[in-house]
């Protein structure tokens, strides 16, 4: 054993490697992506790791490996599970031979997601067990146990960390490589009665699954990570409130609850590590003698519903509070502060802060006249300086000016094209949906010029069926593929168009243009979006044609290339019209004391701004400036 400072996702990956995982597959998605990347970094020669084309493929690949007796891990974010749900639901009936862990990272907030869906429901829906870690250290150990449970019960299991567990770091104890488990898969054994799903088999297995989950619930009641924390001998519940109170919590919320209870005094606490099948026996032990229980959890009230159900089933008088009773917010993520407030008010303490409001005299520490903070800058995320997506959107915007259009966006960095001043994303729903939406709008409003924008990784993941649908059903639309040669938003993962894999192999690139032509598109043009006039001309030409046609804007993400240089403002020429700032919204274009400037630490020299400047005042930084009397540009020093 030794100590390492690890991100939760790294700890999970290392835990899987420690458990002898043979295959890891997945599709990138915040907050899950680092799991697979770390597994790839630490894998031994016998372990196979891949970024699959989407979550459905990833889950199927992992299932196949587990059919062959391997230990497999598949990783995705919560919305990715929607894509993988088809094989998942059937796989639940078939089961596995080797241990299989389906890692789905949930995102309360949501911080970087379209939905606040709760994978614990998928767990109950599919009848698959679910493990819910509270910290990096626990996640490291728990995933090893999850593999064991999966093998013991012959079923895939869910492992569901949330954002703060995934992206929290901790110094944790991990095993040395010499202590790793080596797992040798036995291989696939033909047995059609086992591996081929038919109605009869599903019926029989359904009976077995229900029986198994009763046993699992029993088993989970003695699983060490589900546990009751005893109350302190003299719990200082404020006077006048004689009720016996307890708290039930899971995930990161458990850690918030513990921080508060350690300060104000421990009450009885149920930690739920396996929300499904619910550890009923343990929960009953917890509920015994309590008058009231507060449930602290993120996303949906899963623990709360289970406890409410148990109270009904066993005629217990205990009142269960939480999201359903509006004692805890039912949307957004919990914080140390929100949990503290919830617990304090449940236990009858005055919430922090209120006591001070009541007191009449100020402590005089702070001067009163500056009490209202100045208006804080709003900082929505923006496309990076030099991002080729900005150029692509601007080219389409310029070309289509004055026409009735709809711009259907998709999932990726380019969703940020919605912000002002570009304002080029009218819809965004889920991976690959822009194509279908553009078609639907077009069928209802034939006079609208319909565009669908999709990134290269999203194209391979889920846009191809949408293109086939458009061609087959005679849609009239323009597909714009924003090909930046990477999966940028989630941290630059490779994909089928990049020509390399997670195993380090150089492979044939799958050519997007060839795919589109193969589907039957007659018009497919590839253009450089950073050449503004050529790109806009291309849009005019292509969008004017009937039927389904495509433009591929090809220019690499600035994070995977070396910038060409930088631009600068020739302030003698600059007429301060601010067109560059108003139309592009590039973070490198700044205003200081009424002058336009370029932040050299951000500029990549893409040159887009120089192409729209009406007086050619934006020039490459190496260029000499002739005018002698320009306003002070480089006196340097501070702004004060």
């Amino acid at each position, binding site marked *: 054993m030794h100590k390492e400072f690890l991100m939760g996702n790294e700890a999970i990956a290392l835990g899987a490697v420690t458990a002898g995982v043979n295959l890891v597959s997945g599709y990138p998605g915040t907050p899950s992506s680092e799991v697979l990347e770390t597994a790839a970094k630490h894998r031994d020669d016998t372990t196979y790791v891949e970024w699959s084309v989407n979550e459905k493929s990833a889950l199927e690949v992992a299932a196949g490996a587990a059919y062959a007796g391997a230990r497999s891990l598949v990783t995705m974010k919560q919305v990715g599970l929607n894509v993988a749900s088809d094989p998942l639901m059937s796989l639940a009936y078939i089961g596995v031979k080797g241990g299989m862990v389906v890692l789905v990272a949930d995102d309360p907030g949501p911080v970087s997601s379209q939905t606040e869906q709760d994978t614990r429901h998928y767990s109950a829906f599919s009848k698959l067990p679910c493990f819910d870690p509270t910290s990096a250290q626990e996640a490291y150990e728990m995933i090893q146990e999850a593999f064991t449970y999966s093998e013991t019960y012959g079923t895939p299991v869910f492992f569901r960390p949330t954002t703060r567990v995934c992206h*929290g770091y901790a110094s944790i104890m991990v095993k040395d490589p010499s202590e790793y488990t080596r797992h040798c898969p036995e291989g696939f054994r033909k047995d059609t009665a086992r591996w081929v799903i038919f109605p009869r088999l599903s019926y029989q297995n359904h009976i077995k699954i229900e029986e198994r989950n009763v046993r699992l619930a029993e088993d989970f009641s003695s699983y060490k990570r589900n546990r009751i924390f005893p109350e302190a001998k003299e719990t200082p519940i404020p006077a006048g409130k004689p009720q016996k109170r307890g708290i039930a919590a899971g995930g990161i919320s458990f850690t918030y609850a*513990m921080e508060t209870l350690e300060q104000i005094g421990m009450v009885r606490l149920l930690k739920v590590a396996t929300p499904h099948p619910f550890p009923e026996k343990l929960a009953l032990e917890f509920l015994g003698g309590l008058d009231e229980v507060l449930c602290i959890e993120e996303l949906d009230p899963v623990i709360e519903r289970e406890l409410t159900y148990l109270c009904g089933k066993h005629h217990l008088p205990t009142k269960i509070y939480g999201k359903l009773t509006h004692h805890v917010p039912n949307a957004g993520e919990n914080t140390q502060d929100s949990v503290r407030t919830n617990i304090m008010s449940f236990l009858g303490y005055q919430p922090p802060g209120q006591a001070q409001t009541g007191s009449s005299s100020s402590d005089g520490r*702070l001067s009163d006249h500056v009490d209202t*903070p*100045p208006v804080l800058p709003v900082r929505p995320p*923006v496309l990076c300086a030099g991002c080729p997506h900005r150029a692509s959107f601007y080219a389409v915007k310029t070309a289509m000016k004055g026409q009735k259009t709809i711009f259907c966006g998709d999932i990726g960095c380019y969703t940020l094209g919605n*912000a*002002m001043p570009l304002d080029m994303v009218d819809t965004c729903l889920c991976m690959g949906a822009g194509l279908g939406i553009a078609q639907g709008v077009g069928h209802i409003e034939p006079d609208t010029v319909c565009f669908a924008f999709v990134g290269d990784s999203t194209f391979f993941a889920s846009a191809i069926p949408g293109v086939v649908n458009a061609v087959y059903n005679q849609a009239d639309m323009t597909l714009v593929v924003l090909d930046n040669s990477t999966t940028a938003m989630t941290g630059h993962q490779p994909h089928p168009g990049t020509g390399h894999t997670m195993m380090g192999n150089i492979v044939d690139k799958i050519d997007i243009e060839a795919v589109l032509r193969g589907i039957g598109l007659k018009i497919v043009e590839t253009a450089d979006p950073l050449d503004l006039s050529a790109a806009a001309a291309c849009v005019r030409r292509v969008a004017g044609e009937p039927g389904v046609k495509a433009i591929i804007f090809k220019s690499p993400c600035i994070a995977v290339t070396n910038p060409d240089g930088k631009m600068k403002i020739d302030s003698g020429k600059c007429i301060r019209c601010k067109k560059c700032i108003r139309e592009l919204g590039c973070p490198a274009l700044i205003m200081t004391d009424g002058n336009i400037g370029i932040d050299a630490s951000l500029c990549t020299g893409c040159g887009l701004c120089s192409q729209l400047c009406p007086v050619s005042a934006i020039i490459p930084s190496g260029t000499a400036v002739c005018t002698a009397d320009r306003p002070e540009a480089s006196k340097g020093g*501070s702004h004060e």
Partner: protein
Amino acid sequence: MNKNIVLCGVGGQGTVLASKLIASAAMKKDIPVMSAETIGMAQRGGSVFSHIRMGEGLYTPMIAKGSADIIIGFEPGETVRMLPYLKDGGQIIVSRRAIMPVTAALSDTPYDGGDMIAYLKAHTRKLLVVDTEQACQEIGSVRVLNLLLLGAAVQSGALGLDEEDLKTAIRERVPEKFHELNFRALSYMREHYI
């Protein structure tokens, strides 16, 4: 020794490496450490933070409001945003240089870091404003912002780590060709600390 540290700034400013260095230095001294940071969409120029906690008996990497021993602010406005996390008598280190958000540039909304600094001054007794622009110029690199601020944090004594601890962390975590530059940022802050 228990310490709660908040780092804050704008996506791309280098808060992540700074938090790694602090954690690494704590690890070397065998102090348990936890941290959490913004990952995802906000990294594209949005507001970002790192929470770092050191010491025994911690359950969570997230810091509660009113409990940070020190806030290391990479940008004045972002530091004001995080002010509720500072404990009574806590230390603030802040870079003077403001970063104008695209939204402000577009709408001609004035955004002046000076207002933010004034607000911080009025609300904290232990405030150190670092003239990072001046310092970067003297050192000859814009990439030392995070080390300047860490250097100031070390000098303030509120970090619970010394310059040598950070140097060890730099040797471990940063490519060798940048060691000298980073060391220079630390010593600059030692010499210019008021």
